[in-house]
């Protein structure tokens, strides 16, 4: 599934495995992240998301397989990898008795930036995160949403090419969440590659170009978001919506059309999801057949699955034991 990509990946995970004693956290994990993309990393609790992120950002050593960031091996080129990534963990890791500026300056110095560079970059990132008016405030006094913005500003202080964000929107109110997503969109436009792990699937569907779904340490899907949300190439599905309900029910007539595999009524409205075999017919012929039936057609659109449904289809029910 990764063969569709042509440009060298920013992040490449190959056959990665990791265990905590007897507990297998990751097993033969493979995926790639393309440059300047926003890649979602989704999985239930305990799926192995944070472990994967910790391996990528050089906190854990892979027990098998390898991970490359910009072609650099995370085990052998530790320092260079650290310079080129920005990591935001899934918790607020703040020095609360510092001001916003001091906090960012502290990390700027930790990345070895000169005072002049730090001043310039911090001013830029504070503007980007809309925190320039609060730069002299103590972090302790900031709201959760503001602290998350400061955390994001901190990630940007060393001007990383790859941002690794672990659940950045968890615990934020809807407004703060939307604003955070807007900032991420802005960053992508600036050429950053963003690898974001999240539970909030609806936002990922709108935001991400590609997605990796992990469950119980195994990769269930990795590739473009569109491919996940549409059915397979061989058996696409379209939704036929009528202006009004008709009598008799047209389901049997639709089922009888050439190449149609399955017809399912959409609950609550006069609409049907029609799945067909592309080897026997195509979309134009199917639409022509529908129109020949004389039905009052309102729309005929590709049936995009909701990310929630795709997620549920790919992952297993129940908790990990």
């Amino acid at each position, binding site marked *: 599934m990764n063969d569709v990509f042509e440009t060298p990946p920013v992040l490449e995970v190959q056959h990665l495995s990791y265990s905590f004693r007897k507990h297998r956290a990751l097993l033969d994990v493979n995926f790639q992240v393309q440059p300047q993309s926003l890649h979602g990393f989704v999985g239930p609790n305990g799926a192995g998301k944070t472990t994967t992120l910790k391996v990528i950002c*050089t906190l854990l050593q892979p027990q098998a397989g390898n991970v490359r960031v910009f072609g650099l091996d995370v085990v052998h080129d530790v320092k260079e990898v650290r310079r080129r990534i920005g990591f*935001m963990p899934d918790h607020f890791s703040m020095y609360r*008795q510092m001001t916003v500026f001091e906090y960012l300056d502290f990390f700027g110095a*930790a990345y070895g930036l000169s*005072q002049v560079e730090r001043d310039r970059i911090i001013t830029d990132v504070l503007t980007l995160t809309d925190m320039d008016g609060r730069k002299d405030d103590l972090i302790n006094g900031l709201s959760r949403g503001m602290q998350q913005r400061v955390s994001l500003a901190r990630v940007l202080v060393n001007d990383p090419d790859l941002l690794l964000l672990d659940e950045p929107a968890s615990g934020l109110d809807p407004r703060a969440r939307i604003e955070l997503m807007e900032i991420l969109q802005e960053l992508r436009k600036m050429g950053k590659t963003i690898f974001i792990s999240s539970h909030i699937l609806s936002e990922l569907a709108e935001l991400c170009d590609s997605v990796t779904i992990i469950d119980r340490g195994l990769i269930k899907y990795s590739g473009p978001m569109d491919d996940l949300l549409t059915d397979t190439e061989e058996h696409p599905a379209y939704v036929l919506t009528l202006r009004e309900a008709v009598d008799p029910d047209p389901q049997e007539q639709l089922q009888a059309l050439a190449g149609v595999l399955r017809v399912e009524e959409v609950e609550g409205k006069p609409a049907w999801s029609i799945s067909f075999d592309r080897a026997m017919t195509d979309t134009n012929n199917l639409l022509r057949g529908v129109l020949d039936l004389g039905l009052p057609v309102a729309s005929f659109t590709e049936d995009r699955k909701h990310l929630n449904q795709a997620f549920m289809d790919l992952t297993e029910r129940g908790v990990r034991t």
Partner: protein
Amino acid sequence: MNFGMLAPGCPLLVKELTALAARKRTYQVRALYAVLLFAASLAFFWADLDRRTDGDNNPLLILGSGGPMIQTLVYLQFSGIYLFLPAIACTALTAEKERDALSLLFLTRLGPWTILFEKLVSRLIPMFTFLLLSLPLMAFAYSYGGVSQRQIWGAVFMLSVTTVQVGALALMCSAFCRTTVGAFLLTYAIALAIFPGIPLLIDSFVTRLGEDVACAFLGPFVYDVTFSNTGAAIRWGTFGIRMIPLLGSTLIFLFAARRFLVTRAFLLPRHRLRNLLSALDGMFHRFNQNRVTRGVMLLDEGSSLPEIQPVAWRETQRRSLGRFRYLLRIFLAIELPVVAISISIIVSPGGAKSHMWSITAMMTCLWILIALFIAVQSSSLISGERSRQTLDVLLTTPLSGREIVQQKMQGLWRVVWILSACLGTVCLIKMLLLALVNSMGFQYGQLAYSPMRYLVGSVLAMAVYFPLIAWLSMWIGMTAKAATRAMFLSIFVIATWCTVPIIVGYFGVEYLSMGDTARYLTLLSPAGMIRLDESHVVLSVEHLDAHGWIILFINYAVYSMIVGFFRYKCLRHADRNLQRLEDSSIRDRRLLVEELQTVHPQSAL
């Protein structure tokens, strides 16, 4: 272990016991207690039997020696209660507060008294299992004869009463404090004060209280005067009166715990140290506003930003205990009382020996407090970041583990300098007093001790032991998961290292007649040399006169090497201890060495 049968009536107790049974530490502590109890008991038994037979092989001489053995065992168990139970019980309620789970308990049908009772019992049961560990030793002692039933039943009763009393005290502190560390310190502080620190101090220095008053809260005292003398009949009336303070204090602790449980259930962080420093700040500011100084500023720290060492900058500029301004105030706040007390001791009547004893007592207290302070601060430098979840982000920066650790220590070194200066002042006063005593032709202790050797010894002790405590605690803090655990572990390791060789040495001298061999054993403890310097009674006159300087330098040379070892452990594998990938250059170098050692063992060496 199945505690299901208790579930309908005591759900909290069941939960506590189940959690306790599932924890590895429960068994580790129990094993440690058993080892200490058996080792100490058997050593005392052996010494007692040795003394009785006195080289004679007649077995009849040891018949009837079970009574003193039981006495020894009971006193060891009392010591165990006072040492272990506060640490076990002080977490009872603070653990719930730290997990934000106390509010959930209040929402259940459990009332405050039920919560207290179940928590108390859950902590008493492990202590009773510790007490049961002595049954084989009791059987051993009983087989020698001379044990009365009254001794045994009295011991069972008084050990139980003392256990409940100490448990209630720890529970009260746990209800009062917000954190486990606070409860731990408060419990031991109160225990030290009433069992029987303050009464004894009053008895020694203010007015004669008499042992009945001075030891009124002590279970071992009541046991001693009531049950140990098998010859005399028990005076139940006197026994009843003696039980009043014990039972009364237990009830007071429980009622106070009941009150604090509700009133202090949801405390916000108080930052006492920061508040204290702010108060000191205000006080010095007011003092500074006068006609002479007119608010003069000797040092303007401003709001500088990090230049090249960000972690060191944070430790020295953004932490209260790193800033020069606050350190200076802490120095004055400690130094002035220390000098005042020292002068008052010197000018007070009582003679040179009494003066020297008082200054030595003050020195000992200062040493213990400073050692504790450095251990707590150093062990929490990394583990504190880990607990506050700020470490991961720092570890993803290009700063090497070695740099992080070295920079972290910079703030601590400042504090160590300040504390050393306070301790150094007392050393200097004592040295001058020693020189004065010597010049007057008197001697302190067994010999006229060289003031110069005392001064050099004290300086070396500070130069070697403070870094030793700091690096050892840092190493423990780097490997521990939580700050509280790191602090307790550091204190435990240091306390054990300091006391065990001294106890073994004392035992060797007193009971096994090992003489100077046992005395030298005490130098295996870092406190051994300090004890030698301060009290001058550890080694015999001949040894110290002949080899005083050599012993001094060898001792500190060895301990310097140990400091180097712990520093090496902290810095060499800093990345690994901080739990992140090592810099490849360091790792490659090590792999190369390992490879060379495998292929050419001799050339690698």
